[in-house]
């Protein structure tokens, strides 16, 4: 299995290689054919340089003397990871629902569920830090600053 030190450079190597493949396929316009610098020049340079840096990093990691894994190395707690994933899903849902159901409803729900996911169980905090915040923000934006906020495509 890849260790932590190798994972990053390996991921970047894959990404940079993919970038290089696309960079070499950038279509050149007729007038660019005889030019020294085209729209593909720097992307190719970046890709080549990036791949070299990744290979150097992988080589440096492999050449490094192996150390005993230390107890201090930070491990991720499952509950924290799950919480982070839940927040990411919530953000995607918020992005998807913002326009269909409108700012007020989606924001209130996002904040309320977000606080809940973060372990907040006090009803007063859950309710007072979500709906009023969404309403006050909506009021400031639409009524004071005159910025349009979607009321919801589903019912407008």
């Amino acid at each position, binding site marked *: 299995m890849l260790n*932590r030190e190798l*994972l*990053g450079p390996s991921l*970047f190597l894959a*990404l*940079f290689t993919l970038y290089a493949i*696309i960079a070499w396929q*950038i*279509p*050149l*316009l007729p007038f*660019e054919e005889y*030019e*020294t*610098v*085209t*729209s593909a020049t*720097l*992307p190719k340079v*970046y*890709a080549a*340089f*990036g791949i070299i*840096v*990744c290979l*150097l*990093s992988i080589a440096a990691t492999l*050449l*490094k*003397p192996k150390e005993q894994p230390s107890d201090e190395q*930070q491990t*991720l707690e499952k509950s*924290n*990871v799950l*919480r*982070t994933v839940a*927040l*990411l899903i919530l*953000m*995607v849902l*918020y*992005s998807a629902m*913002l*326009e269909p159901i409108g700012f007020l409803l989606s*924001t209130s729900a*996002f*904040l309320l569920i*977000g*606080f809940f*996911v*973060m*372990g*907040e169980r006090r009803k007063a*905090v859950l309710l007072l*830090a979500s709906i009023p*915040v969404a309403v006050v*923000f909506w009021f400031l*934006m639409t009524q004071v*600053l005159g*910025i349009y906020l979607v009321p919801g495509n589903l019912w407008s």
Partner: protein
Amino acid sequence: MFDGIMLGLSTVLDWNNLLYVIIGCFVGTFIGMLPGLGPITAIALMIPITYSIGADSGMILMAGVYYGAIFGGSTSSILINAPGVAGTVASSFDGYPLAKQGHAGKALAIAAYSSFIGGTIGAILLMVAAPLLAKVSLSFQSPDYVVLMFLGLTAIAAFSNKGQFLKAMMMTVFGLMLATVGIDPSSGTERFTLGQADLLDGISFLLVAMATFALAEALINVTRPEKKDVKGINDSDTPQIGSTKLTKEEIKDIAPVIGRSSILGFIVGVLPGAGATIASFMAYATERNLAPKGLKEKFGKGSLRGLAAPESANNAACTGSFVPLLTLGIPGSGTTAIMLGALIAYGIQPGPMLMQENPSVFWAVIVSMYFGNIVLLILNLPLIPYFAKVLAMPKSVLTVMILFFSLIGVYLVSFNTFDLFMMVGFAIVALVLRLLAFPMAPLLLGFILGDMIERNFRRSMMISDGSLSFLWERPLTLSIFVISILVLLFPLKDFITQRRADKAALKVKSEHAS
């Protein structure tokens, strides 16, 4: 210069702008105090607001947030030993022991005075250095800019934490690559859009800044909470503030330290990639070496000198980092990179012409620093006990609020939900990279400088008839290029020394084992 100062004064003294200085300092202090959140996050969160208030006011607000966040970071370093920003880590070495000894008020007062003097000396030096450098840089041509930006990118990688050089380089290249997405402005060719019409205009700077800093910072605090996170802090953890008065002897003792550290901090701040963190550590180490024997031993145990040195140096460095930004248009740190992006978004091209084309922005930022420092001293010092309560804010509420403000901040600028999805995608990538200990600032710097590098590189190649000879034709270009190469090779020395040390350590271990 006098005319410039007067112009800056008249801009800053506009009551709207004065209000922005105060708001900036307040918000910066507030966010900077929260462990894990630094000036970059604070500024990223403010960008959507600055878009609606004009360039002068926007830059004044962001500058206020910047030094406010550094000041706020010192407060959490001193009170709970949890620095909000890397630049204030050195402040906790002696600040926290002082607080534990019951002198929290004194420590906070020293931090405030040192920051004020460091910031003010920095502002004076900036006022002298920036116009001079701007005049010199008027003679700069495209090739000089290419190598100068190259220097900026290599320097931020070279000055990154030990052993992180290659990681920082990968992030820089990643940032440069992201900058190539969209229609090529020179030829009109589509690049890396993957058939998505939403990517034709490229990736928004705000989106990348918010995703990689504000969102990723908030999420990393959930994934890997600090030992002393916001949730864990209660009243018993926060020491009593106590008196903020300093005796004459104490003032006499720290005054030369503050003077020296401020100048050192400013010089380090001007260097691309160095910034407040390196400045504060260097000032701390210098003062420890300079201290007489009796006082040297007090370092790390509550030395007033040990607190004054990093505090004055980090604020002076923040001011110093504006020199390359305002005069060359090249940011030396992640924070100034965000400001550069904001300036470009305003349609202002930072660089030597900034002082001539937009003198009000140039001088207003410089003059606002005086006012910002005064605001921090007059308003924040008496309010510290109340600000300290911020540290007790529930993390559950705070994290979700940051996520909300980041998402809605980007949406309010583009009104496009595609940007939100992309932002979450970037946040996931940034989170994984953060967990793998990749630094984020080089990515942002590469992303922001990418477009400028490409434009100047093309122009240089055109001037030199498609040859790379522009790199050595002019002495100035050649000098900067050679410095960049040296900076690039600098970490190699560390790598070789480290390898030798590792091998030696392993040999000793195996001999012990056998």
